[in-house]
């Protein structure tokens, strides 16, 4: 009798069932800093989409008579050596950030997920070959691998995207491989198998969906790293060609006038930092919301 009572008690103390979506949004938006990150990213997408309308000046137009002006009411963030408005170039630079970040992540995710999934699921010699190649690629620091590839392929934004994609794939493949190895041990995979499901069906219907939440977190956090890597490459001088606007290159351009016009370097640096910070915070928020171990705690 006593046992039944505790069972009832435990049952009544169990939290009421909430829809997964509701819980996701509640946990995700719980921390103010995550909302801040979302706002920053929203602004980034907005400025990139409507750069033509928002930018007060043409970001590529040289006006030498306006060269190197400090911040004023007509040029909020001043002008660079060629008289181009810093604010307008910052706004157009947001397009570079999004273009490089999202194309790289999408392509790398498709290839990396597929390689990791296949290696984890098929196993054997296929897995060994795929994963050792990934290990070898991970031996190169991302920036150095990207630099080597960009040097061979030449400058230009599409080559930066290719280089960063190659550098990003192994990380995705490795994590996906680990997840696939764990998930395929589950009984529901065995059940599915016993019902006669083929490899493809199991991989796409069971393993991939179960691996996606942690992968989404990884990809979001990685976006910050990619923004940083793109900035670093364009700072060194590899990447978008002049007169195109990239934040890293803007920091470098301003570096020469640091003594008299520090704003030229400071402004694009703050922009990079804000965006990376936003991606990291949103990634952290997603992790809290998607981590099954935190269910019941958060």
């Amino acid at each position, binding site marked *: 009798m006593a046992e039944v009572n505790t069972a009832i008690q435990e049952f009544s103390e169990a939290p009421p069932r909430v829809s997964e979506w509701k819980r996701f949004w509640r946990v995700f938006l719980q921390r103010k800093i995550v909302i801040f990150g979302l706002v920053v990213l929203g602004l980034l997408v907005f400025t990139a989409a409507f750069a033509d309308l928002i930018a007060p000046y043409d970001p590529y137009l040289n006006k030498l008579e306006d060269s190197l002006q400090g911040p004023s009411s007509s040029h909020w963030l001043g002008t660079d050596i060629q008289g181009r408005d810093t604010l307008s170039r910052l706004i157009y630079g947001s397009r570079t950030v999004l273009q490089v970040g999202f194309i790289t992540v999408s392509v790398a995710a498709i290839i990396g997920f597929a390689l990791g999934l296949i290696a984890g699921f098929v196993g054997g010699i296929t897995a060994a070959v795929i994963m050792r190649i990934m290990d070898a690629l991970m031996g190169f620091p991302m920036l150095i691998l990207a630099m080597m590839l960009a040097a061979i392929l030449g400058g230009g934004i599409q080559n930066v995207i290719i280089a960063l994609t190659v550098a990003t794939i192994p990380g995705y493949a490795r994590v996906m491989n680990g997840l696939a190895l764990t998930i395929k041990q589950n009984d529901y995979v065995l059940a599915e198998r016993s019902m006669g499901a083929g490899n493809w069906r199991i991989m796409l219907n069971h393993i991939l969906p179960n691996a996606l939440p942690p992968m989404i977190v990884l990809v979001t956090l990685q976006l910050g790293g990619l923004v940083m890597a793109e900035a670093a490459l364009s700072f060194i001088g590899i990447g978008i060609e002049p007169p195109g606007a990239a934040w890293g290159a803007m920091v470098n351009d301003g570096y020469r006038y640091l003594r008299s016009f520090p704003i030229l370097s400071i402004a*694009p640096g703050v922009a990079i930092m804000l965006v990376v910070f936003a991606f990291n915070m949103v990634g952290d928020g997603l992790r809290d919301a998607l981590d099954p171990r935190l269910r019941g705690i958060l």
Partner: protein
Amino acid sequence: MTAYIIRRLFMAVVIIILVTVIVFLSIRLLPGDPLIIFLGNQATSGTITEEELDRLRIEYRLDKSLPEQYALWMWDLLHGNLGTSIYYHENVGTLMAERFPITLHLGVLALILNIVVGTLMGLAAAVRRGTWIDTVSTFLANIGVCIPVFWLAAILVYIFSLRLGWLEIAGYISPFEDFWLNTRQIILPVFCMAIGGLSTTARLTRSSMLEVTRQDYIRTAWSKGLRERTVIMKHALKNGLIPIVTVLGMGIGMVFAGSVIIETMFAIPGVGRLLVTSIFAQDYVVIQSGTLVIAAIIVITNLFVEISYVWLDPRIRYN
């Protein structure tokens, strides 16, 4: 354990061979005649005749088949010959040997700063969870991971070199020649090189310590009436520090990646700057060998890291 080490050693050798294949093929298979790539601007400006091109083709062994080229290149590598730089007209091994100690000097200092300060920050945040110490340390670490190093360097140069005049703007002199000048030169580069890794270490230590302090044996330690210092230092820290070994492994990669930017900004003649200069001089011999050496060092470090896991944490069993 021995079997595990031998297996890992074998795997590391396989990975290093794959690294050489990747470096080799990326130059040979990507679009463009490798000879034109090797020669860079000289070839395209038309100052070289056809006969000379043919002669160079033989000199660079580009007339041979790919496997033969690879085998010869590996043969040279195994004999310590990294090739002759097109831009510097010097053996790449010599070039690297001159610059390596400088990168190592900065890198080791940055790594020490990373681990000491990062661990302390993370530890303080975890032990004093929820207090202002935690808030400040976590905030700084969050800023640190997303600050672009080149930008931070620019700001610090502006403040400490240009405005205050305390530190040097750029340059590197051997510490054996002028220790104080050297110190004033390397404070900013080392700090900038360390900041990213330091913040990562702090975040990792904090979360790992929080995880450990929830364990049963910590509760046991508390209930035995041990002092806080004993519980934290003797019981929690030992296990909480395991992720730091990973950071050490990653740190080596970060040192090289960081050196590319930092050495360029501060005009420090290290390996990173050599790579950047070679990229703009289109010196593919240096790029190829330099990247290879760096990757090999990283693979070997990771091998040590993985082996030391087993030694540090007996719970990890490898089969």
